[in-house]
């Protein structure tokens, strides 16, 4: 297995274009969390012509709703949730400069088209590996929608957060390539 590629946030176009479907990466820097309910509110903000609660340019959104932190812990368990539920909201955020998403599972054609148009990347973390992934999160603070509990938007500082490139900006798709390689039926 090849060694993982280290990437630092925020991402530039050149960073994104260097990543290919199937690459293992270790992400360091600041990323923001958001799930269904937070996405809905972000889009409502945009509809009203208001500003987002964080600067989205060059950023990565991580689809996660962590468990509560135990006393003294930075965060609870924090693995990815199913990305497809955010498909309806994602193209609009990509058009505003979002450079990447971390989640699990496949994306819609609309999201892939918007990624292609905006040079963005979709990464997966290992679903269910929530206690392991939490070790790479060094700081976590709620910056918006505290009332949403696990679905609040958090600013995370991560070091060597493990992920895999699923969809790159030039149409590469790990789900398609991987399954074709190991499928033994027509």
């Amino acid at each position: 297995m090849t060694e993982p590629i280290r990437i630092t946030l925020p991402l530039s176009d050149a960073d994104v274009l260097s990543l290919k479907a199937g690459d293992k990466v270790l992400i360091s820097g600041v990323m923001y969390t958001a799930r269904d309910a937070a996405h809905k509110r972000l889009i409502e903000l945009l509809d009203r012509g208001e500003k987002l609660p964080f600067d989205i340019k060059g950023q990565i959104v991580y689809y996660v709703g962590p468990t509560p932190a135990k006393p003294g812990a930075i965060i609870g368990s924090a693995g990815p949730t199913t990305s497809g539920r955010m498909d309806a909201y994602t193209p609009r955020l990509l058009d505003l400069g979002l450079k990447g998403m971390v989640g699990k599972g496949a994306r819609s054609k609309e999201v892939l088209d918007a990624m292609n148009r905006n040079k963005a990347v979709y990464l997966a973390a290992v679903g269910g590996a929530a206690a392991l992934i939490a070790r790479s999160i060094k700081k976590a603070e709620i910056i918006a929608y505290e009332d949403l509990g696990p679905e609040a938007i958090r600013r995370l500082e991560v070091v060597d957060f493990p992920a895999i490139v699923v969809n790159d900006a030039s149409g590469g798709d790990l789900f398609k390539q991987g399954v074709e390689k190991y499928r033994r039926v027509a």
Partner: protein
Amino acid sequence: MKKVLSSEITKAVRALCISAACNLEPDVAGALRTSLAREQSPLGRDVLSQIITNFEIADKESLPMCQDTGIAVFFIEVGRLVELDGSLEDAVNEGVRQGYKDGYLRKSVCHPLKRVNTGDNTPAIIHTTIVEGDRVKIKIAPKGAGSENMSALKMLKPAEGVNGIKAFVLDTVRSAGGNPCPPIVVGVGIGGSFEKSAILAKKALLRSIGSKHTDAEVAALEAELLKSINDLGIGPMGFGGVVTALAVHIETYPCHIASLPVAINIQCHAGRHKEAVL
């Protein structure tokens, strides 16, 4: 009659919620470890290694293995000689309330339309049966939504038969792809009625991984479907590979002459289940 106190039920449920979230049962842990040697894809092996390391950390540090600590589903058997001093449902829900709070588990239950979180992970889903004896057996299977959302139910025509069942199972697993966090366990309920088939599928997930159905014909169908699913190439997390499912468990029940209900309940690799007997 034997008295079982509500407070005892609450205490047992509280402990079950926490241990189910943090300590993977040996049958699932063993199946995941074995699958590592079978996986041909290097990336697939990498994913399986992360999954194994994760449940080892969770167990050692009493952390939830997955942030989705699920909606709490119970199968409870109450002996007919048991006398309860209060509502079984209330006692179980109080245990869930305490377990999810004290165990720092995520509260993931909300109103279906208003989408407002109930705040304490209640109400639980409780299936109760009255059985012989003087014991209360409580089985918990907290269920995350990633895999639950990929489940399906279909009322087949009897003429579609076993081939129709196979096609439905394979279509459901194929279209789920990486979403339900493979390697998965596939629970299939065949027969009964609309709702019975769904409960059978859920119950099938509670069987020990790899246990065979007692009816040889059903056991053969389980083995055939497992092979067919692993031939789909989905692999760990959908990145491609030969380990897509750890097991297929089927439960059956007689049904109406005009119908063939089939329900498929998909379980992620964090196949959490625990039981306690009072």
